[in-house]
Each structure stands twice: as structure tokens, then as C-alpha cells.
């Protein structure tokens, strides 16, 4: 459900940070087409502000996908061309009764 790559500072604590970011926005709600736009924006914003507060010399990219549960198949993949010793990513998958949410954060070290 949660996975992070390489032991950079991103992995440690990032998955719980993302989880709480999602939970605070989506927790208890059902999928709603009118609100989903607002939700995805709020999730990425919340996660980013928490990450920036850690105050490490990183650039961050946060992506979020919210999908309604109707039996459709969804696959995501990402690949990164970077410095594997310093950079890292973390992906969290969250769900409730009516929707799935996948949030990824990529952290790139500022040389």
C-alpha cells in the first residue's frame, strides 16, 4: 500500500505525512464530481506545505489522483531519471467505500 524508494529523507515519515494529508481532506466523504476538483487541489497543497516545513534542500513534486469506484481498471507507473543516491519518491494508496486516492511525492535534491 505504501512504498518508498531509497533511504533518502523523503521516505522517513513522508508516507504518514501524505496519509494524514489525504485523510484530512477526503476522510468520511463519498465521491462527488462537483467536489473532486477542490479535493485534489487541497490534498496536493496540504501535502506540499507539510513537506516544505521539514526544511530540507529539496525540490518537490506532489501528484494526486482520485478515482471513483465503479469496477474500472486503473494502472499508474512512474520512472525517474535522477541521482539515485540523493533523490527519492514515496507513493501512498488510500481508499474508502466510494473512491481510490493515489498520492506520490518526488523529492529532488538541490545540488
Amino acid at each position, binding site marked *: 500500500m505504501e512504498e518508498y524508494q531509497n533511504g533518502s529523507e523523503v521516505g522517513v515519515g513522508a508516507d504518514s505525512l501524505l496519509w494524514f494529508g489525504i485523510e484530512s481532506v477526503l476522510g468520511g466523504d463519498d465521491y462527488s464530481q462537483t467536489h473532486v476538483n477542490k479535493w485534489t*487541489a487541497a490534498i496536493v*497543497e496540504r501535502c*506540499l506545505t507539510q513537506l516544505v516545513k521539514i526544511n530540507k534542500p529539496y525540490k518537490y513534486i*506532489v501528484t494526486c489522483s482520485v478515482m471513483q469506484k465503479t*469496477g*474500472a*481498471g486503473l494502472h499508474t507507473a512512474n520512472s*525517474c531519471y535522477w541521482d539515485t543516491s540523493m533523490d527519492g519518491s514515496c507513493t501512498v494508496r488510500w481508499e474508502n467505500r466510494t473512491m481510490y486516492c493515489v498520492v506520490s511525492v518526488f523529492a*529532488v535534491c538541490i545540488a
Partner: protein
Amino acid sequence: MVPFQNVFVGEDLICPRRVHLFYFEDNFIVILVPVSATLATMDDFLSEDKTTFIVEEVSKIIKDSVETVIGENSYKHGRVNQWTTSVVEQCLIQLSKLDKPFKFIVNCIIMQKNGAGLQTASTCFWDNATDGSCTVRWENDTMYVIISIFGLAI
């Protein structure tokens, strides 16, 4: 004044700077466009292309990769895994061939067309002047494909 035909770019031979020529019916109107206070050389213009994130270029790479890997195939649960991997790999290979001082992140989402709603968002904490992103939404009869590429200058 509206340029009538093509805009030509040439080099002023007297003092080296890039000039733009607007061909205007039978008359030529030469307009000098110095980029900075000091005289710019052709090299300065060429190096700019090598260090910036060009969205059109990246967008073309994405479209070509998706067409090559997926094309007209129908959504198949057993093959989707392989498709997402191939698409991101193809994109990354083409991007590294550009030989630019960038780190790249390629993200690919494939969703079956089933009436479900899908919303994606991304936000970035980076250097606005040098970094950039490009997102392409592609579809065929049975699936949606969304590919995002983020480029961060080293």
C-alpha cells in the same frame, strides 16, 4: 503593421547580433532585436535551447511514445502493466537523448473507459525560471492515458 509573409532570421554581418526580417509585400523591413544590453552572439541563442525545458518538444516525445506502445490496442488487464512500463521507459530514453542538464520524472496513468470519474492534480515546489512540466491526455476507444513529465534543472 502586420508581417505579411514569413519572418526570416538572419545575422547582421556588421556587428554580430541576431536580426528579424519581416518580409512585407515587396519591401523588406529590418528590425534589430537585441536580447540584452551587450551584443548577443549566435552562441548565446543556441545555448538557451540546450538549458530550457521546451514543452512542445517534450509533448511530441510523449505522443510518439504512446502511439508506438499502445496505438489502437484495446484495454486488457493482463497487458496494462507492461504498457505503462514501456511508455515511461520510452519517454525517458527519448528525454535522456536530448542531452540537457535536467532530472526527469515521468508519470503515466492508464484507465479503462467505464464511466468512472478520474481527477488528477499536481503541485510543484521548484525554481519557476528553470523547471517545467508537460502533461498529455491521450485516448482511444477503450482507455484514457494521462502522461506527465516534470523536468528539474540541475
